[in-house]
């Protein structure tokens, strides 16, 4: 059984300008100890997906439909107290800008001990040692001394590691990481990515990595779901995605990374981000797609399997016009 199965998830934002249908029927699946990458640009709905799973969608957003089945139970039907008990315990989340996510008045050690006591249910006399153990598990040097540090005394990379330590304190089955390394230095980014891989290998934590960086996702993720305007346009194991991308958007993203040997123009995707208040009829990507034909303008494409574990949402696959 899959660890997490999202079916027909609909999350709408009720704004002044109208109803923004950020997610309008999202489907995907995550297996235990698997790292899934949700890759998309601004407005693709990737962060909202993460929040929807934990039912933390900020106002004016609301989950209006679908199912989020975690270990067999639909999270959306759960009464709030039970959902609250789940957060931080079975499913944990870490965010961008770790320093702002930590309470500046609480030293790191006390924060971790709180988490251990109230989320992991550890008795008070054991929390300190476990906190030290957690800090060394995330490779923070000199963990004993670090317990007394305040968040502003930590560098970005270290703060993020503290967040990860807190997130795994209760041994969650699923960790959602929302742009955890955006804004951090590249060398630190590499370290954090390595840590996430370790979590999967050593503790078996399944993860959803939300990022706009396809390259980053390729470093860590087992499977990648490429999102555009609230839909998953392509879903495949990482290697397959890079080797044989099927959706024009995926192809565009891959091609638009500058490469060393290239001289001349980088093939760029023309146009700009979609308007989610008045979405275009038909495929949401067609205004920017160089392969668009009539059907694309009329209907919304459905996922088509290229192979058992690889699908893309594009009419090119069914019309057989694809190279």
């Amino acid at each position: 059984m899959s660890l997490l199965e999202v079916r027909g998830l609909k999350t709408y934002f009720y704004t002044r300008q109208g109803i923004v249908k950020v997610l309008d029927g999202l489907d995907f699946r995550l297996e235990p100890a698997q790292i899934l990458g949700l890759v998309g640009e601004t407005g693709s709905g990737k962060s909202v997906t993460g929040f929807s799973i934990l039912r933390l969608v900020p106002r004016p957003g609301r989950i209006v439909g679908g199912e989020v089945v975690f270990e067999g139970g639909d999270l959306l039907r759960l009464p709030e107290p039970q959902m609250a008990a789940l957060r931080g315990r079975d499913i944990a989340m870490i965010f961008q800008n770790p320093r702002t996510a930590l309470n500046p008045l609480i030293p790191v050690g006390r924060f971790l001990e709180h988490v251990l006591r109230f989320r992991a249910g550890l008795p008070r006399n054991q929390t300190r040692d476990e906190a030290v153990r957690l800090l060394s598990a995330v490779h923070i040097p000199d963990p004993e001394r670090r317990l007394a540090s305040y968040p502003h005394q930590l560098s970005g990379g270290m703060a993020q590691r503290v967040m990860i330590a807190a997130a795994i304190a209760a041994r969650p089955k699923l960790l959602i990481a929302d742009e955890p390394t955006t804004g951090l230095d590249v060398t630190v980014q590499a370290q954090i990515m390595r840590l996430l891989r370790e979590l999967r290998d050593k503790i078996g934590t399944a993860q959803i990595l939300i990022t706009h960086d396809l390259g980053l996702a390729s470093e860590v993720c087992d499977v990648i779901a490429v999102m555009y305007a609230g839909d998953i346009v392509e879903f495949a194991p990482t290697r397959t995605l890079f080797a044989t991308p099927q959706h024009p958007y995926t192809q565009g993203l891959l091609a638009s990374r500058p490469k060393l040997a290239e001289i001349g123009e980088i093939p760029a995707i023309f146009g700009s981000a979609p308007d989610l208040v008045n979405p275009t009829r038909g495929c949401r990507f067609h205004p920017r797609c160089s392969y668009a034909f009539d059907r694309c303008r009329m209907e919304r494409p459905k996922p088509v399997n290229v192979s058992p574990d690889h699908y893309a949402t594009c009419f090119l696959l069914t019309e057989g016009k694809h190279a």
Partner: protein
Amino acid sequence: MPEPVLVVENVVKHYPVPAGWLRHQYVHAVDGVSFEIYPGQTLALVGESGSGKSTLGRMLLMLERPTSGRVLYKGQDLSRLRDSVLRIYRKSLQMVFQDPMDALNPRMTVLETVMEPLVLHGIAKGRVARDRALELLERVGLKREHAARYPHQLSGGQQQRVGIARALATEPEFVVFDEPTSALDVSVQAQLLNLTSRLRVEYGLSSAFISHDLTVVSYVADRVAVMYLGQIVELGTRRQIFESPQHPYTVSLMSSMPGGRPLMPWKPLVLEGEIPSPLNPPSGCRFHTRCPFAEASCRTKMQRLEPIKPGHLVACHQVMERGGYDALEAEKARRKA
């Protein structure tokens, strides 16, 4: 070989930071950087936080004055000039900033923003300035309807195009691009990089391109300077740096480039630890605290950029002594075995 457009000589920038009642500490933002940029060339300044690249970028235009050292534009020492004279040079020296939204005055329309440099430098006034500004907007890929808009009504990519139009209004000779695409989405990034490349050729610009992203750098740069904690650790042509990086830091930087990693010839190197604070840089070679090849001498000996091949400079005596990074790597592997 034509004369260089810009010559940077031993530029140093230390910021005093109050530490305690009357004492001061110094942030060693930039510590002795020298290089030259030739006409039509783009030099990339690559580094992470604390490398000093942004501070250096501002000093190239004298938006900040160096603590010591000189910046020569076409032979003229900019650091000696009074502010009022410097302003005249701003016609030829321009900058495109990192955060496109923050770089635009929220209460000025796009048109006003692009017109301002024309008017300031007496290039055009009134109607003429307006027409020129509209032309510029078209050149950077915006439409007439954008001219009357305010920054918050534009997307990030469009805002940055305005920033570029503003920088090019006075037809400058040298432009500093400070991480122009870092704050933008990947698909927009490609569009903007194509645009800047095209414009650089059209305007015959020399430029300094600051970035932390090596893949972007690989596309735009003619030459690359890798910076760490305020100093240049490696300097070479694009080919040299990407096909045979010599400094361990450069190698680790390339190893950390996720995905689309250029073909790196050596084994990937992932560093431990964090970047030390520029308040208290390590002694000797500043990189020694994280360098897997560090030895006792690295702690005491100051590093200088030395040529390992014509035009390819490296600041690491270990690499120099062995004649190349590959030799250093091989020796380490041998010693382990």
